[in-house]
């Protein structure tokens, strides 16, 4: 009888431990961030870089790159605070492929502008953490770009448990009941720099908030999906904002010619380039006239 009582007590303790583990394992916060400031101005002992007057040679050759994470050199790239890290989305918020896909979205949008000759996607491997302008000069030499859009991001994922998480006590509930509530806050930020003058031309952010839920078992998968969607949505908003900022920047260039010099080359076929061109109907009519002329030539 005493033995049976001990067994029940042990089972209850084990059950409590398991319930605590299940209940506590999914709460936490994950943060992934990169910073343009950390990349461009890593050493505060250095004097502040004084920007010169940018000379924008149209059409522009533009580079686009994600600034590297400080975590790559042992700093603060990703942080996790929570009970059970393996359930979280992992250390990497953005893989190289995902970065390339996001940059490709931006590139395909900006290729339509006649003042952009080409946009080069620069892999993260070419940017050193804290590389600063010396690194950008190397990129300029390697890719021949005049202007670079540096992308950084900040993504925070919160995971909390809802009342439905009580069903985890049944074990089956952990598989089928979405008791986890996830919030994914994402910010993508693009800063456009003229490399040679070290002057920031303009910047545009894009933000998103994804609210989701998951079962305990598929939590990590759901977090990855939310993270991915967060970056996609933020990229879309950033592209819209980039368009707006670009329009404002164009006005600024017109209003302040002393601060921004624009050089147009014959390659640039937009804005100040006029083309004497004929329309199709005029040409068709002229072809008709030529046809009639040939016909009376033959008849004669």
């Amino acid at each position, binding site marked *: 009888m005493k033995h049976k009582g001990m067994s029940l007590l042990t089972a209850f303790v084990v059950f409590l431990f398991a319930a605590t583990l299940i209940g506590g394992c999914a709460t936490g916060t994950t943060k992934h961030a990169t910073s343009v400031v950390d990349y461009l101005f890593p050493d505060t002992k250095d004097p502040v870089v004084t920007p010169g007057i940018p000379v924008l040679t149209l059409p522009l050759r533009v580079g686009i790159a994600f600034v590297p994470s400080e975590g790559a050199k042992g700093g603060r790239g990703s942080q996790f605070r929570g009970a059970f890290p393996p359930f979280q989305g992992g250390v990497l918020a953005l893989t190289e492929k995902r970065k390339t896909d996001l940059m490709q979205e931006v590139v395909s949008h900006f290729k339509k502008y006649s003042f952009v000759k080409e946009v080069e996607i620069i892999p993260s491997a070419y940017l050193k953490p804290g590389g600063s302008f010396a690194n950008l000069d190397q990129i300029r030499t390697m890719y021949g770009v005049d202007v670079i859009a540096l992308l950084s991001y900040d993504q925070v994922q919160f995971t909390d448990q809802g009342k439905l998480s009580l069903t985890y006590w049944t074990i089956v509930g952990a598989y089928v009941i979405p008791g986890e509530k996830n919030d994914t806050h994402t910010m993508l930020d693009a800063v456009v720099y003229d490399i040679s003058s070290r002057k920031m031309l303009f910047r545009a952010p894009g933000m998103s908030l994804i609210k989701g839920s998951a079962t305990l078992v598929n939590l990590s998968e759901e977090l990855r999906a939310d993270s991915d969607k967060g970056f996609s949505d933020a990229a879309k908003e950033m592209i819209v904002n980039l368009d707006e900022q670009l329009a404002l920047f164009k006005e600024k260039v017109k209003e302040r010619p002393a601060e921004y010099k624009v050089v147009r080359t*014959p390659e640039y*076929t*937009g804005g100040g*380039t006029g083309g*004497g061109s004929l329309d199709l109907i*005029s*040409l068709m009519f002229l072809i008709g006239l*030529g046809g009639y*002329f040939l016909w009376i*030539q033959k008849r004669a």
Partner: protein
Amino acid sequence: MDTETRLTAVRFPVWTLIISACVVFIYGMPVLGTFLIYDRAAIAQGEFWRLVTGNFVHLSNTHLTFNLAAFLIAGTIIETRGYRFFPLLCLSAALLIGIIIFEVEPAMCFYAGLSGIVTAAVTYLCLHGLTEKGMWRWLCAVMLAGVTAKIGIELMFGKSFLLTVSTEGFVPAPLSHLIGSVTAILLFALMRLSSNTGHTKTII
């Protein structure tokens, strides 16, 4: 000489072919195009040849194809029919287009394209056609009315009202068409005036 008799005396469109060959050659040599294009800044520094040569530079395949096709048709008819002063028309139209755009359009940093000269050639052809008889005369009258309407609407709206080479990155320059047309009218009027004076002198 009536229309039919003139048509039997077939001439070779030498100037049309020479100019067309030059245009294609320039297009095939982008470096040459860079030295010949109407570049406002370079002209201001003394590279005055660009005022004329800019008309013979083209910015894309479509731009070249449309302009060259129209020029070949108009130029061939003009030369084959024996209308005089075609090279002079091309040169004066090119020069006037360059000078007037330089004076009137300070925002236009670059200009390229043969269409001003083509418009001059078409206007010149139609004006000559009006002096002839038959169907040809009516066709030329309709064409001239079309050209006038097109230029008017282009100037009013700043773009062509018809189907354009719209995918190009450059802005249309309707002023060049107007200048080309006016050049043709002036040359034609001068010709008529000088021939009338000559005729009067002969009578006297």
